[in-house]
């Protein structure tokens, strides 16, 4: 372990901006991308459900 305090950890030996600038952006992308994929799935499922209801109204079965 090369850290004696949290402050030292966040400072990253003077490279804080570069190390955290890399890790935070990478982490943000890896949180955002699955959320967008999930939203895409939700959107298409909602459209499919709506279409099914429309079909049933047309057929008079609803």
């Amino acid at each position, binding site marked *: 372990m*090369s850290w004696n305090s949290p402050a030292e950890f966040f400072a990253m*030996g*003077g490279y804080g901006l570069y190390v955290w600038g890399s890790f935070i952006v990478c982490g943000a992308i890896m949180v955002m991308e699955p959320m967008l994929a999930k939203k895409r799935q939700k959107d298409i499922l909602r*459209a499919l*459900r709506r279409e*099914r209801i429309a079909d049933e109204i047309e057929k008079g079965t609803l």
Partner: protein
Amino acid sequence: MSNRLINWFKFASPQSFYPLAGRMIPWFWALAAVFGIAGLWISFFVAPTDAVQGEGYRIIFIHVPSSWMSMFIYLVMAAWAALGLALNTRLSGMMAQALAPTGALMAFISLWTGAFWGKPMWGTWWVWDARLTSELILFFLYIGFIALQAAIDDPRRADKAGAILALVGVVNVPIIYFSVKWWNTLHQGASVSIAKSPSMAQTMLWGMLIMALAFWMYSIAVALMRVRAIILERETHTEWVKELSEVKQ
């Protein structure tokens, strides 16, 4: 005909791949989380301070895995595209389309973390060095593939056009890989190669490999999520989609 052959081809249809992908996604997320936590722990608490670059080198733990994945995903995407072009299977084009955004983001992470590493070590965010330039071209190839597919209304024709673009672009991957050998570049040579033992501390190497596994599992999980949405989008008017329990509720 053997049973094995039939079972294998069964999953090549979107209808049977859709539920299979759904069952696999949680497992790949679990693996990504386990490798990710272990990898981050090694990256920050186990791997020693570098003698030359101090703590700044820790960017390697995301820079190298994202660079590897950006190239690997491109090869997988091109392989799916080629398969679709040769056999005209429906799922292939969907897989290629699902992989492209993840690959583009990996290329972006690679370029971004490279800039944030280059600034303190080389004194510049960017140089027109062979490795950096060819990785930027890879990023543009992904963007071009996505844009070309989005511009063509008929998905089957979009697949064909995208496949040709993806296959032509494959030539760029070995150029990226060997760029540090072929040209005299500012970017350092490979830290890990098959031919010789790695030129880095054991714990650093392990951290990097475990992070690479985490990125790999993440990429599979997110691409499977996306391919499921693409399957539904493209198969909207089929009977099996209408019969899905999540559509019927």
